[in-house]
């Protein structure tokens, strides 16, 4: 079934009309909106500039995003070197504080790299994208050395360009930070801000503070050639300080990117007394922070709105990305199996065999490509081609409720504000963010689709 591609949302006394698959967005008044609706339902030509809008409504998009087809076509390789971690984040969704420090057998990592390189060469690709993930991936020191150098060696011999990035907590020696700055291309450094947030949310073993170590790592990495992305988890306690944190991060560490993501509440965060930010506050503060970042030429991102082109997934799931776990499972998702299984989902792709052969099961790849398509909660939402439902396991899992959740609220608000800014309507954004009722109308408008009813 084709998904909707024409949307309109009430913005104060106007309507934001958004056709993501046609790359058309407009802010129109009530009368124009009525004409648009009439032209769609009555198939009449409204005249003037509305004629071209109507044309876009009734013309199918040239490029309708669809799931990948054909043989498995790996897009990226992610290696989870270990699920273990050297700190104890109070909201960790990846089992870091409780997982044992068991490291991947280097032979598995080497087999995966060699296989991926062959796949890329066979398809005429030029870029080998590797993501190191954990737990804390860098605590597997020798394994990481092997992975990075093997990858660079294989790429050099096959005329591929290596691009290696790592998601890290930054608690590492200065020597390791120097090495990262020398041999990696990009670092996503989880850093929740000034010491009062970092030390509370991301304590070390036995509750030790981590701010000093992460600050040292960030300062060093900011002096290197790598792309530095600072990723902060925003909580109820920190949300109103996002603009201040943005400025502080930029002035202290000169990152290329700042990524604010709202806390996803779980048992751990509840035990620690941490709460999720109010989604309206989050949206407001995110937009203010974005403007501050822009003044300094820094990109502020939020994963659910991070796409210039329509997409079916805001994460690697469904794109034939391969996530290889420490014990040699090949998955389509970074989360742990327990997380999907409790949602009745299966994200496995295959396994590395005892002889270190990579075995992808085609039916699993097919299932993953299609698992991301049916999102009942998203059917009426204008964000469905950018947010794409967010995390398929935590947000829009099988049989989840069809009502918007806080994640949807902040995503809808930020999406709308970004679209308005693209139209040059910054003053409308300002007015909207000052008017909680108007924000609520945007956030809770549960059917944005033009030309179809719920």
């Amino acid at each position, binding site marked *: 079934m084709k998904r909707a591609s024409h949307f309109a949302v009430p913005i104060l006394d106007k309507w934001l009309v958004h056709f993501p698959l046609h790359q058309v967005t407009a802010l129109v008044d009530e009368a124009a909106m009525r004409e648009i609706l009439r032209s769609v339902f009555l198939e009449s030509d409204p005249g003037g500039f509305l004629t071209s809008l109507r044309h876009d409504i009734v013309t199918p998009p040239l490029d309708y995003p669809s799931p990948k087809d054909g043989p498995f076509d790996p897009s990226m390789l992610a290696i989870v070197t270990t699920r273990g971690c050297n700190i104890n984040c109070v909201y960790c969704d990846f089992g870091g504080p409780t997982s044992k420090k068991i490291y991947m057998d280097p032979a598995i990592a*080497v087999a995966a790299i060699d296989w991926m390189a062959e796949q890329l060469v066979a398809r005429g690709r030029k870029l080998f994208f590797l993501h190191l993930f954990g737990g804390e991936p860098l605590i597997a020191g020798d394994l990481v*050395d*092997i992975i990075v150098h*093997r990858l660079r060696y294989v790429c050099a011999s096959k005329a591929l360009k290596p691009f290696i990035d790592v998601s890290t907590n930054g608690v590492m020696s200065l020597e390791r930070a120097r090495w990262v700055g020398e*041999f990696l291309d990009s670092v996503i450094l989880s850093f929740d801000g000034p010491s009062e947030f970092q030390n509370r949310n991301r304590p070390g073993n036995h509750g030790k503070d981590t701010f000093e170590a992460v600050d040292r790592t960030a300062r060093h990495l900011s002096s290197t050639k790598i792309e530095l992305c600072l990723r902060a988890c925003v909580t109820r306690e920190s949300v109103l300080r996002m603009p201040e944190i943005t400025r502080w991060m930029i002035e202290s560490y000169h990152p290329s990117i700042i990524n604010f993501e709202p806390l996803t509440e779980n048992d751990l965060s509840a035990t620690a007394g941490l709460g999720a930010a109010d989604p309206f506050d989050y949206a407001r503060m995110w937009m203010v922070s974005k403007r501050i970042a822009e003044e300094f030429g820094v990109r502020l991102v939020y994963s659910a709105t991070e796409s210039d082109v329509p997409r079916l997934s805001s994460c690697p799931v469904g794109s034939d990305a391969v996530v290889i776990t420490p014990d040699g499972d090949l998955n389509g998702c970074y989360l742990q199996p327990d997380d999907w299984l409790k949602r009745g989902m299966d994200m496995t792709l295959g396994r590395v065999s005892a002889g270190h052969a990579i075995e992808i099961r085609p039916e699993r790849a097919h299932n993953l490509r299609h698992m991301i398509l049916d999102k009942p909660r998203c059917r009426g939402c204008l964000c469905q081609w950018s947010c794409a439902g967010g995390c398929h396991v935590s947000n829009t899992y099988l049989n989840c409720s069809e009502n918007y959740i806080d994640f949807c609220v902040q995503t809808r608000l930020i999406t709308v504000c970004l679209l308005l800014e693209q139209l040059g309507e910054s003053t409308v954004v300002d007015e909207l963010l000052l008017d909680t009722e108007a924000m609520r109308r945007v956030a809770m408008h549960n059917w944005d689709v033009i030309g179809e009813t719920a």
Partner: protein
Amino acid sequence: MNSHFVQINAPTFRCAPGVAWSAESDGIRLVAPDRSFTVRLAYPEAALWDFMARGVSETRATVMMKHIAGFPDDVAASRFIAECLQGWHKQGLITPG
């Protein structure tokens, strides 16, 4: 550019005084103290240079080089390491210490 103290092997080696290096996407580039010459190390030698520069022990370097370069066993990896170090020493890129 890096210029780290190192210790590896018996005898151990370190970068010759003033030799600086930096990673490139397909290897490592060394620059002589007076910038009179540069040496480009391709892989797998580049990996070994990194290990030497960080003072990684011979035992660990052998295991890692075996995986990185695909040597059939530790003996082959060890021989490769010894030959590289000898060659770099002759070129004046490293000194015992």
